[in-house]
Protein backbone atom coordinates (compact mmCIF):
# COMPACT_ATOMS: atom_id res chain seq x y z
CA UNK A 1 0.00 0.00 0.00
CA UNK A 2 1.48 3.30 -0.98
CA UNK A 3 1.49 6.00 1.66
CA UNK A 4 -0.64 8.34 -0.42
CA UNK A 5 -3.67 6.08 -0.41
CA UNK A 6 -4.34 6.57 3.28
CA UNK A 7 -4.58 10.26 2.74
CA UNK A 8 -6.59 9.80 -0.43
CA UNK A 9 -9.20 8.16 1.72
CA UNK A 10 -9.25 11.18 4.02
CA UNK A 11 -9.34 13.47 1.02
CA UNK A 12 -12.43 11.76 -0.39
CA UNK A 13 -14.35 12.33 2.84
CA UNK A 14 -13.15 15.87 3.24
CA UNK A 15 -14.16 16.76 -0.34
CA UNK A 16 -17.68 15.66 0.57
CA UNK A 17 -17.61 17.60 3.84
CA UNK A 18 -16.61 20.72 1.95
CA UNK A 19 -19.31 20.18 -0.66
CA UNK A 20 -22.07 19.60 1.89
CA UNK A 21 -21.01 22.57 3.97
CA UNK A 22 -20.98 24.73 0.87
CA UNK A 23 -24.48 23.54 0.09
CA UNK A 24 -25.51 24.49 3.60
CA UNK A 25 -24.19 28.02 2.95
CA UNK A 26 -26.33 28.30 -0.14
CA UNK A 27 -29.41 27.01 1.65
CA UNK A 28 -28.88 29.46 4.49
CA UNK A 29 -28.46 32.24 1.96
CA UNK A 30 -31.65 31.25 0.17
CA UNK A 31 -33.61 31.22 3.42
CA UNK A 32 -32.14 34.52 4.54
CA UNK A 33 -33.11 36.10 1.25
CA UNK A 34 -36.55 34.52 0.95
CA UNK A 35 -38.17 37.97 1.05
CA UNK A 36 -35.44 40.08 -0.58
CA UNK A 37 -36.86 42.31 -3.26
CA UNK A 38 -33.77 44.33 -4.06
CA UNK A 39 -30.48 43.01 -5.39
CA UNK A 40 -27.48 44.61 -7.04
CA UNK A 41 -28.52 43.28 -10.43
CA UNK A 42 -31.97 44.67 -9.83
CA UNK A 43 -35.15 42.70 -9.20
CA UNK A 44 -35.75 40.15 -6.47
CA UNK A 45 -33.18 37.71 -5.18
CA UNK A 46 -32.76 34.55 -7.24
CA UNK A 47 -32.39 31.15 -5.69
CA UNK A 48 -28.89 29.66 -5.79
CA UNK A 49 -27.78 26.11 -5.24
CA UNK A 50 -24.88 23.84 -6.02
CA UNK A 51 -24.79 20.67 -8.08
CA UNK A 52 -22.56 17.77 -7.16
CA UNK A 53 -20.28 16.07 -9.60
CA UNK A 54 -18.23 12.93 -9.12
CA UNK A 55 -14.50 13.55 -9.04
CA UNK A 56 -12.80 10.47 -10.43
CA UNK A 57 -10.71 9.16 -13.28
CA UNK A 58 -10.97 5.80 -14.99
CA UNK A 59 -9.36 3.61 -12.36
CA UNK A 60 -10.24 2.88 -8.76
CA UNK A 61 -6.96 4.49 -7.80
CA UNK A 62 -8.14 7.82 -9.07
CA UNK A 63 -11.27 8.16 -6.91
CA UNK A 64 -11.25 11.61 -5.42
CA UNK A 65 -14.71 12.09 -3.94
CA UNK A 66 -17.05 14.79 -5.02
CA UNK A 67 -16.81 18.18 -6.68
CA UNK A 68 -19.42 20.91 -6.87
CA UNK A 69 -20.44 23.71 -9.16
CA UNK A 70 -22.63 26.68 -8.50
CA UNK A 71 -26.02 26.55 -10.13
CA UNK A 72 -28.01 29.71 -10.76
CA UNK A 73 -31.68 29.67 -11.47
CA UNK A 74 -32.09 32.72 -13.66
CA UNK A 75 -35.18 31.52 -15.45
CA UNK A 76 -37.35 31.07 -12.39
CA UNK A 77 -40.20 33.56 -12.40
CA UNK A 78 -40.65 35.68 -9.28
CA UNK A 79 -43.58 35.10 -6.98
CA UNK A 80 -46.10 37.91 -7.30
CA UNK A 81 -47.85 39.22 -4.22
CA UNK A 82 -50.36 42.04 -4.35
CA UNK A 83 -49.16 44.78 -2.02
CA UNK A 84 -49.49 48.28 -3.53
CA UNK A 85 -48.10 49.93 -0.37
CA UNK A 86 -44.74 48.18 -0.74
CA UNK A 87 -41.93 50.52 -1.88
CA UNK A 88 -40.89 47.98 -4.56
CA UNK A 89 -44.39 47.42 -5.86
CA UNK A 90 -44.85 47.50 -9.62
CA UNK A 91 -47.28 49.87 -11.24
CA UNK A 92 -49.99 47.21 -11.18
CA UNK A 93 -49.59 46.87 -7.41
CA UNK A 94 -47.78 43.48 -7.41
CA UNK A 95 -44.48 42.96 -5.63
CA UNK A 96 -41.94 40.50 -7.07
CA UNK A 97 -40.66 38.18 -4.37
CA UNK A 98 -38.05 35.43 -4.86
CA UNK A 99 -39.69 32.08 -5.55
CA UNK A 100 -38.16 30.28 -2.60
CA UNK A 101 -40.03 27.37 -1.11
CA UNK A 102 -39.06 27.32 2.55
CA UNK A 103 -40.12 23.69 2.96
CA UNK A 104 -37.94 22.59 0.05
CA UNK A 105 -35.00 24.47 1.49
CA UNK A 106 -35.53 22.79 4.87
CA UNK A 107 -35.59 19.37 3.24
CA UNK A 108 -32.36 20.15 1.38
CA UNK A 109 -30.88 21.28 4.67
CA UNK A 110 -31.72 18.00 6.39
CA UNK A 111 -30.28 16.11 3.42
CA UNK A 112 -27.06 18.09 3.60
CA UNK A 113 -26.81 17.55 7.36
CA UNK A 114 -27.29 13.81 7.06
CA UNK A 115 -24.81 13.53 4.23
CA UNK A 116 -22.32 15.52 6.28
CA UNK A 117 -22.78 13.20 9.26
CA UNK A 118 -22.35 10.12 7.08
CA UNK A 119 -19.09 11.47 5.73
CA UNK A 120 -17.86 12.27 9.22
CA UNK A 121 -18.50 8.62 10.09
CA UNK A 122 -16.51 7.45 7.08
CA UNK A 123 -13.69 9.77 8.03
CA UNK A 124 -13.68 8.47 11.61
CA UNK A 125 -13.66 4.92 10.35
CA UNK A 126 -10.75 5.59 7.99
CA UNK A 127 -8.87 7.22 10.82
CA UNK A 128 -9.51 4.28 13.13
CA UNK A 129 -8.25 1.89 10.47
CA UNK A 130 -5.08 3.85 9.93
CA UNK A 131 -4.43 3.99 13.65
CA UNK A 132 -5.07 0.27 13.89
CA UNK A 133 -2.44 -0.35 11.24
CA UNK A 134 0.09 1.33 13.47
CA UNK A 135 -0.69 -1.32 16.08
CA UNK A 136 1.26 -3.83 14.01
CA UNK A 137 4.35 -2.14 15.38
CA UNK A 138 3.39 -2.93 18.96
Amino acid at each position, binding site marked *: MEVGSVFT*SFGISSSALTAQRKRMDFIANNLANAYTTRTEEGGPYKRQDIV*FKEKAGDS*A*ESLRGVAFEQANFEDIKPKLIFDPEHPDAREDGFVEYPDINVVNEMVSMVKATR*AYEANVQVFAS*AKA*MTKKAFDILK
Partner: protein
Amino acid sequence: MDMFSQGFIPKYERSLDVLSARHRVIGHNVANVNTPGYRAKDVDFQKVLGNVFSSFEAVSGRNEQERYIDGFERRIYENMEERVKRSYVPGNEAHEELIREISQLKYDIDPGFEDEDLEPFTVNPVTLNDDSPYNDVEIDEQMTKMSETQILYDLMIAAVQKRFSQVRSAIKESV
Protein backbone atom coordinates in the same frame (compact mmCIF):
# COMPACT_ATOMS: atom_id res chain seq x y z
CA MET B 1 14.23 -19.81 4.49
CA ASP B 2 13.18 -16.31 3.76
CA MET B 3 10.05 -16.02 5.83
CA PHE B 4 9.52 -12.34 5.29
CA SER B 5 9.08 -12.46 1.54
CA GLN B 6 7.42 -15.85 1.21
CA GLY B 7 5.65 -16.54 4.46
CA PHE B 8 2.51 -15.08 5.87
CA ILE B 9 3.47 -11.44 5.58
CA PRO B 10 2.73 -10.82 1.88
CA LYS B 11 -0.64 -12.49 2.28
CA TYR B 12 -1.71 -10.28 5.12
CA GLU B 13 -0.25 -7.30 3.32
CA ARG B 14 -2.37 -8.12 0.30
CA SER B 15 -5.49 -8.54 2.43
CA LEU B 16 -4.95 -5.24 4.18
CA ASP B 17 -4.41 -3.60 0.79
CA VAL B 18 -7.68 -4.85 -0.62
CA LEU B 19 -9.62 -3.97 2.51
CA SER B 20 -8.30 -0.44 2.59
CA ALA B 21 -9.04 -0.09 -1.13
CA ARG B 22 -12.60 -1.17 -0.45
CA HIS B 23 -12.87 1.27 2.38
CA ARG B 24 -11.70 4.02 0.06
CA VAL B 25 -14.29 3.08 -2.56
CA ILE B 26 -17.05 3.10 0.06
CA GLY B 27 -15.89 6.52 1.22
CA HIS B 28 -16.16 7.67 -2.38
CA ASN B 29 -19.71 6.32 -2.59
CA VAL B 30 -20.74 8.12 0.57
CA ALA B 31 -19.09 11.32 -0.68
CA ASN B 32 -21.27 11.08 -3.76
CA VAL B 33 -24.50 10.32 -1.93
CA ASN B 34 -26.17 13.42 -3.38
CA THR B 35 -24.50 13.39 -6.80
CA PRO B 36 -27.06 13.05 -9.56
CA GLY B 37 -26.57 9.99 -11.74
CA TYR B 38 -23.84 8.49 -9.59
CA ARG B 39 -23.68 4.69 -9.40
CA ALA B 40 -22.28 2.96 -6.31
CA LYS B 41 -18.98 1.17 -6.72
CA ASP B 42 -17.43 -1.73 -4.87
CA VAL B 43 -14.33 -3.89 -4.77
CA ASP B 44 -14.54 -7.64 -5.04
CA PHE B 45 -12.60 -8.13 -1.85
CA GLN B 46 -13.97 -11.59 -1.17
CA LYS B 47 -12.47 -12.91 -4.37
CA VAL B 48 -9.10 -11.45 -3.49
CA LEU B 49 -9.18 -12.65 0.11
CA GLY B 50 -10.31 -16.02 -1.17
CA ASN B 51 -7.35 -16.16 -3.55
CA VAL B 52 -4.92 -15.12 -0.88
CA PHE B 53 -6.03 -17.62 1.67
CA SER B 54 -6.73 -20.48 -0.69
CA SER B 55 -3.19 -20.15 -2.01
CA PHE B 56 -2.21 -20.30 1.63
CA GLU B 57 -3.86 -23.71 1.77
CA ALA B 58 -2.94 -24.75 -1.74
CA VAL B 59 0.78 -24.45 -1.20
CA SER B 60 0.48 -27.33 1.13
CA GLY B 61 -3.16 -28.32 1.16
CA ARG B 62 -1.94 -29.49 4.51
CA ASN B 63 -0.76 -28.08 7.76
CA GLU B 64 1.62 -25.34 8.65
CA GLN B 65 4.69 -27.44 9.35
CA GLU B 66 4.50 -29.06 5.98
CA ARG B 67 4.26 -25.66 4.39
CA TYR B 68 7.53 -24.68 5.97
CA ILE B 69 9.06 -27.86 4.65
CA ASP B 70 7.83 -26.85 1.19
CA GLY B 71 9.46 -23.50 1.61
CA PHE B 72 12.69 -25.25 2.53
CA GLU B 73 12.45 -27.51 -0.48
CA ARG B 74 11.82 -24.55 -2.71
CA ARG B 75 14.92 -22.93 -1.37
CA ILE B 76 16.93 -26.00 -2.31
CA TYR B 77 15.61 -25.90 -5.86
CA GLU B 78 16.42 -22.24 -6.10
CA ASN B 79 19.93 -22.94 -4.95
CA MET B 80 20.25 -25.70 -7.48
CA GLU B 81 18.94 -23.49 -10.26
CA GLU B 82 21.42 -20.81 -9.40
CA ARG B 83 24.36 -23.21 -9.51
CA VAL B 84 23.28 -24.72 -12.77
CA LYS B 85 22.85 -21.29 -14.28
CA ARG B 86 26.27 -20.23 -13.11
CA SER B 87 27.93 -23.07 -14.99
CA TYR B 88 25.72 -22.52 -17.99
CA VAL B 89 27.21 -23.38 -21.36
CA PRO B 90 25.37 -21.65 -24.23
CA GLY B 91 23.79 -24.04 -26.68
CA ASN B 92 24.04 -27.06 -24.41
CA GLU B 93 20.73 -28.93 -24.77
CA ALA B 94 21.07 -30.99 -21.62
CA HIS B 95 21.80 -27.93 -19.59
CA GLU B 96 18.77 -26.07 -20.79
CA GLU B 97 16.63 -29.09 -20.15
CA LEU B 98 17.90 -29.23 -16.59
CA ILE B 99 17.12 -25.57 -16.00
CA ARG B 100 13.60 -26.06 -17.33
CA GLU B 101 13.08 -29.07 -15.09
CA ILE B 102 14.22 -27.27 -12.00
CA SER B 103 12.05 -24.26 -12.59
CA GLN B 104 9.10 -26.59 -13.16
CA LEU B 105 9.81 -28.27 -9.82
CA LYS B 106 9.97 -24.89 -8.19
CA TYR B 107 6.68 -23.95 -9.76
CA ASP B 108 5.03 -27.16 -8.53
CA ILE B 109 6.07 -26.44 -5.01
CA ASP B 110 4.76 -22.93 -4.82
CA PRO B 111 1.73 -22.11 -6.95
CA GLY B 112 1.54 -19.02 -4.75
CA PHE B 113 -0.14 -16.01 -6.20
CA GLU B 114 0.72 -13.57 -8.91
CA ASP B 115 0.27 -9.85 -8.57
CA GLU B 116 -2.10 -9.67 -11.51
CA ASP B 117 -4.28 -12.47 -10.11
CA LEU B 118 -4.85 -10.43 -7.02
CA GLU B 119 -5.51 -7.08 -8.66
CA PRO B 120 -7.55 -5.64 -5.80
CA PHE B 121 -9.17 -2.83 -7.72
CA THR B 122 -11.99 -4.63 -9.46
CA VAL B 123 -14.51 -1.89 -9.11
CA ASN B 124 -17.92 -2.92 -10.34
CA PRO B 125 -20.05 0.00 -11.35
CA VAL B 126 -23.67 -0.97 -10.98
CA THR B 127 -25.16 -0.66 -14.41
CA LEU B 128 -28.67 0.54 -14.86
CA ASN B 129 -30.39 0.64 -18.19
CA ASP B 130 -31.24 4.29 -18.28
CA ASP B 131 -29.11 7.41 -17.97
CA SER B 132 -31.47 8.98 -15.46
CA PRO B 133 -30.04 11.18 -12.71
CA TYR B 134 -31.14 8.49 -10.26
CA ASN B 135 -28.46 7.87 -7.68
CA ASP B 136 -28.26 4.32 -6.37
CA VAL B 137 -26.15 4.89 -3.25
CA GLU B 138 -28.00 3.36 -0.32
CA ILE B 139 -26.48 5.03 2.68
CA ASP B 140 -27.27 2.25 5.17
CA GLU B 141 -25.89 -0.37 2.81
CA GLN B 142 -22.68 1.64 2.46
CA MET B 143 -22.39 2.07 6.22
CA THR B 144 -22.84 -1.67 6.75
CA LYS B 145 -20.18 -2.42 4.16
CA MET B 146 -17.92 0.09 5.80
CA SER B 147 -18.12 -1.42 9.26
CA GLU B 148 -17.74 -4.88 7.75
CA THR B 149 -14.57 -3.75 6.02
CA GLN B 150 -13.28 -2.10 9.16
CA ILE B 151 -13.89 -5.17 11.30
CA LEU B 152 -12.14 -7.40 8.77
CA TYR B 153 -9.26 -4.96 8.68
CA ASP B 154 -8.96 -5.01 12.48
CA LEU B 155 -9.11 -8.78 12.36
CA MET B 156 -6.27 -8.94 9.85
CA ILE B 157 -4.19 -6.59 11.98
CA ALA B 158 -4.80 -8.76 15.02
CA ALA B 159 -3.83 -11.85 13.03
CA VAL B 160 -0.62 -10.22 11.81
CA GLN B 161 0.24 -9.16 15.35
CA LYS B 162 -0.35 -12.69 16.55
CA ARG B 163 1.93 -14.15 13.88
CA PHE B 164 4.64 -11.65 14.68
CA SER B 165 4.42 -12.42 18.37
CA GLN B 166 4.75 -16.11 17.56
CA VAL B 167 7.89 -15.43 15.56
CA ARG B 168 9.20 -13.21 18.32
CA SER B 169 8.66 -15.86 20.96
CA ALA B 170 10.34 -18.43 18.73
CA ILE B 171 13.37 -16.17 18.61
CA LYS B 172 13.35 -15.65 22.36
CA GLU B 173 12.96 -19.32 23.21
CA SER B 174 15.99 -20.24 21.16
CA VAL B 175 18.33 -18.18 23.33
